[in-house]
């Protein structure tokens, strides 16, 4: 069975779109799209990825060329999907899988609800908060308070994502909520220090993926993506800090 140019392009562009939406590095997306289109029988492939869009040009053996562009707006973080698409492209290149299977699996990856629902992610967030408080030599009740504060942060994330929140609004509100928890608990029980609660609570807000991708993009030579992701990380940190500072300033 021969694969038409449109089919090649749609498969590779969908793969790129899924990876970009879920927070993959730029060079990984470009390489995956190139490999997938080549595995389907393209003679030359050019791809260009920036954090807000995917561009792909494919030329087939007959010399026909097709270019598509996909704009990506909602970006989340789901490393499971990235690793699945990665595996898919590996098995496509190794000829262990045909076009139809690959297309079906890719569509189901892009649609499925993977990973964990609200309660497990709230618990995970809480554990990050509580664990960080333990590393700060917190006492038992402070650890518990940090656990609760970090859980609240995750709940706010859930609400904000339902309301299609603006960028950085979640980090800002999260920082405010954490600082509010710390200050409130301190005023109820004066011997409970707010430090450990706030430090633990802001830990789930650290932009880990943005930092890592920024570094890896810069190394790979994708300066445009690297700079914008670095800026995203810096602005996220600033938003969290401003949220905390505003509540602390109210107290002082």
């Amino acid at each position, binding site marked *: 069975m021969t694969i038409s140019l449109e089919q090649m392009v749609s498969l590779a562009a969908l793969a790129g779109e899924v990876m970009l939406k879920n927070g993959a590095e730029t060079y*990984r997306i470009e390489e995956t799209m190139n490999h997938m289109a080549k595995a389907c029988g393209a003679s030359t492939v050019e791809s260009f990825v920036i954090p807000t869009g995917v561009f792909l040009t494919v030329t087939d053996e007959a010399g026909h060329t097709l270019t598509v562009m996909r704009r990506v707006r909602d970006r989340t973080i789901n490393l499971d*999907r990235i690793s699945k698409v990665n595996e898919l492209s590996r098995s496509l290149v190794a000829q262990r899988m045909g076009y139809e299977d690959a297309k079906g699996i890719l569509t189901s990856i892009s649609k499925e609800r993977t990973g*964990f629902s609200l309660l497990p992610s709230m618990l995970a967030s809480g554990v990050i908060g509580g664990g960080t408080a333990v590393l*700060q030599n917190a006492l038992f009740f402070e650890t518990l308070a940090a656990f609760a504060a970090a859980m609240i942060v995750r709940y706010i994330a859930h609400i904000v994502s339902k309301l299609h929140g603006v960028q950085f609004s979640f980090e800002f509100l999260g920082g405010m909520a954490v600082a509010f928890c710390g200050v409130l608990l301190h005023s109820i029980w004066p011997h409970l220090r707010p*430090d450990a609660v*706030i*430090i633990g609570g802001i830990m789930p807000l650290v932009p880990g993926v943005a930092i890592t991708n920024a*570094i890896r993009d810069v190394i790979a030579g994708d300066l445009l993506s690297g700079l914008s992701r670095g800026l995203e990380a810096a602005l996220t940190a600033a938003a969290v800090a401003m949220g905390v500072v505003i509540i*602390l300033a109210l107290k002082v």
Partner: protein
Amino acid sequence: MLMVKIIAVLLISASVGILYRIPRKLLLYVSFVGMVAWLIMYITMRLGGNGILADFLASVAVGVIAEILARILRKPATIFIIPGFIPLVPGGDAYMTMLYMVEGNYVDGVAKGMQTILTAGAIAFGIFVSSTIFRLIKNYNLESCSTDVRKS
């Protein structure tokens, strides 16, 4: 107390993995990466090294272990890097910076802020160094492969 902290680090790394939705069967690996990194930081601090050096060494270790695990398990290295370095993030310094600034104590605030930024920079640069080394190895291998093909 050290044992409790090690367990806390293991739990933190695994939880970061859950929060960023990494494949479930890799959770044990990422908590191992986090623990090794944190222990390197802790031991360096205990031996009298300063915090910036300690974080740098730890994050180089995160990068190296992550790239090796990524080669063995054939997964993106990012999966192992992110949970590995989260326990190293200088949250305490960042909080103290904010507190000093709010209290109007700008001298201490700027000093602490500088320390926070340098520590965060050391973590970023540590990952930068290890990723660069692995990218050089990869490019070198690709080059030697292609020359082999040309010879034959």
